[in-house]
């Protein structure tokens, strides 16, 4: 695996950041996924950075997991409530072995359970979480700073990028290696 170098520039104003990102992106020809904006709060999509991959692929695929697992839950619900009742044909209160209402209830619950699990899984997978390794980061971000994090391939590019970020208003620039 190739080594890569990271630069994290911290900004204090949204405008500065928004101004800086396209310039940096252009300068180093960064693809989606090679530049991140770190913030302490959720900004509406596409406000800070244009990320087509995220918009048109990830956010769409994200719902695949809840959907698929929902179907799995549906099947499990039917099997559990209906199927086992059918196999275990004990007469209880004159209820039929495959009783629709109870099966419906259990199926509903299981579908939702699996959908919930699916959405968490998709959050983890597409959000790249969990990742407990040492990564380029600065605690200032949670205190309100905005960070622009980029991934470049060489040391020279890294230095260049750091200078550029400082020029574009970063009050702090951090350099790192293999910690995107």
């Amino acid at each position, binding site marked *: 695996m190739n080594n890569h170098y990271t630069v994290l520039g911290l900004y204090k104003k949204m405008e500065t950041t928004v101004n800086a990102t396209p310039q940096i992106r252009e300068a180093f020809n960064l693809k989606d996924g090679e530049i991140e904006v770190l913030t302490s709060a959720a900004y509406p999509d596409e406000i800070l950075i244009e990320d087509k991959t995220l918009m048109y692929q990830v956010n769409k695929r994200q719902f695949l997991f809840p959907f698929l697992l929902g179907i799995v839950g549906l099947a499990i619900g039917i099997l559990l409530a209906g199927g086992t009742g059918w196999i*275990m*044909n*004990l*007469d*209880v*209160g*004159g*209820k*039929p*072995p495959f009783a629709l209402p109870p099966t419906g209830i259990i199926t509903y619950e299981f579908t939702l359970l699996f959908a919930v699990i699916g959405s968490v899984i998709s959050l983890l997978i597409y959000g790249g979480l969990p990742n407990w390794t040492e990564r380029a980061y600065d605690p200032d971000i949670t205190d309100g700073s905005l960070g622009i994090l980029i991934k470049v391939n060489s040391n020279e590019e890294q230095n260049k990028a750091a200078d550029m970020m400082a020029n574009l208003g970063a009050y702090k620039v951090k350099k790192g290696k293999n910690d995107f």
Partner: protein
Amino acid sequence: MKSFNYKKHNDYKWAMTVDLDRCDGCGACVVACQAENNIPSLGVEQTQEGRNMLWLRIERYIEGSYPDVKVRFLPMMCQHCDTAPCESVCPVYATYQNNEGLNVQVYNRCVGTRFCGNNCPYSVRYFNWYDPDFEGKEKNQLNPDVSLREKGIMEKCTFCMQRIRRGKDNAADEGREVHDGDIKPACVQTCPTGALEFGNINDHHSRVSKLAHSGRAISLFEEKGTHPSVKYLKGGTADVF
């Protein structure tokens, strides 16, 4: 009767009739039941709490006031409903309908949610609030045919299932069907006035079948649609005066 006819046809369907006109409330059946089924005595403290463990109890109702007062007795035991409300609510299949029309309680499976007791309109299900207390010599009396129930599980009248099994075994040994009157639960066996009858209601010649199809037969809480196996024979209204 049933909306789903998935049950196979059975030779036996056990039923009981209670002749309210004959019952004099003497309580012999109550004690016979306790003796046969290893039902523990709860003692004073538990009775004070309002508990009791009478699989068969004689309900007593008062009508009117002095001097035109009437006291009625109503022996109440598990009605062994065809569509028993208690069965479907059990989360662990601890109670179910067997193929002879009995509402069976499986002690081993019971976890003690007591839901069945809440759904029994006849309130004939009983709970073991404590472990049964059979001390020392009293153990000698315990019926080996009937298991003891530990604390935390529900129990109720079984129609003396052990006697039904023995009756069927004996009949099978002799290579015949069970005759009417072969099998008598302890209460039916002992009833001095003959108010209780037991038998196979599928056999149209059995006494219980005839009584159950007589004009006097009623089911308790018929409107609830539980289809009990116990039929009550209405008391006559006497025109003495």
